[in-house]
């Protein structure tokens, strides 16, 4: 193989490495502040014990999996009630259960979803009770 071809290959590799590491060096040093989630809704204010369906850290990690499981069980198996660890029973419903307390979707759901860059499609069909009332 001729010499200049090695040059081209090396150049190609360099370009490849630069492009693939782009997110790392372009974002270096930049920090975005972690969002503060607002629990300031009338429904939550009325709660005696400020507790979600399960405890906070579990919900933070697994709410999407819980919602996915709820969705399948409620729609496909007709199992519409969820018994939490401490025995409380909830209806498996995004609009009817979750958003009743977290009615401030923009300050609660959206802030974190935007921060981590996920775009759940839930809300394209399931309405936010507050928004519909407006």
């Amino acid at each position, binding site marked *: 193989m001729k010499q200049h071809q090695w040059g081209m290959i090396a150049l190609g590799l360099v370009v490849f490495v630069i492009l693939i590491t782009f997110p790392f060096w372009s974002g270096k040093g930049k920090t975005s502040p972690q969002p503060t989630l607002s629990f300031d809704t009338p429904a939550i204010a009325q709660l005696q014990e400020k507790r979600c369906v*399960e405890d906070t850290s579990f919900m933070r990690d697994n709410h999407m999996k819980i919602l996915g499981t709820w969705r399948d069980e409620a729609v496909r198996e007709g199992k*519409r009630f969820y018994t939490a*660890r401490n025995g409380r029973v909830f209806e498996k419903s995004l609009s009817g259960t979750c958003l009743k307390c977290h009615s401030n979707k923009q300050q609660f759901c959206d802030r974190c979803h935007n921060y981590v860059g996920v775009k759940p499609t839930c809300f394209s069909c399931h309405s936010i009770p507050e928004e519909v009332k407006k």
Partner: protein
Amino acid sequence: MTTSRREFLKIAGVSTLSLIAPAILCRPACSQEKVIIPGDSSLKTKSSGQALTAKRWAMAVTPSKCPTGCTACITACHGAHNVPDFGNRKDEVKWIWQEPFAAAFPNEKHAYLGESFQKLRLPVFCNHCTNPSCVRVCPTKATFQRPDGIVMMDYHRCVGCRLCMAACPYGARSMNYRDPQPFIAKRNPDFPTRTKGVVEKCNFCEERLVKGILPACVTACKEKALIFGDAENPQSELRLLLGKHFNLRRRAHLGTGPQIYYII
């Protein structure tokens, strides 16, 4: 060079594949993974105690009771389920609508049919067949049959291939050819809307049954032209009605086992 370019590419290809393969192969397993939620090992389902249940839901329709021009059932259903009105036939989405006798029962029509029959406008909707062809053809099980006979749509799963629309002999299914939300006149917050690209149809108001309420069309009909009940319970109002009056099912010869009975 000891390794030819060909060999190198082969090795590179195989190693790339071996990196991707687990991700692809493991996906089905991961997606079915159930969250193990503490204290929920039994997954017990608490019934609200008031839900309406049946072995097989069915409906009896007496179209002769329908007053001319009445669309109460349609308005109630489409309002309750956020059915959009696009205002054109092409994109049309409908769960329940009216058809003349000749369209609903093409095999029973003839030139000397009484005038009362020819003027008849029959409410038509999903037949919730006992042997639904739409369920059979669905490639993702997005449409499925519940043990109580209701043929359901899982809008989360539908890929929008429209094979069910080709398979339904009743034209009961509609495709969301575009985003329905701007075309919903008054949004009912208690029922989800649909997104573009999925197929939808009548669900026998399963969301109301679970709360112990009869379907929207049935409660909206002041003439009692629509009677909803358990086809497998001989004492149900539905069965008593069917026992007394001659009735027809649409295109029953196709073997789909439609569960809407028309008392003519």
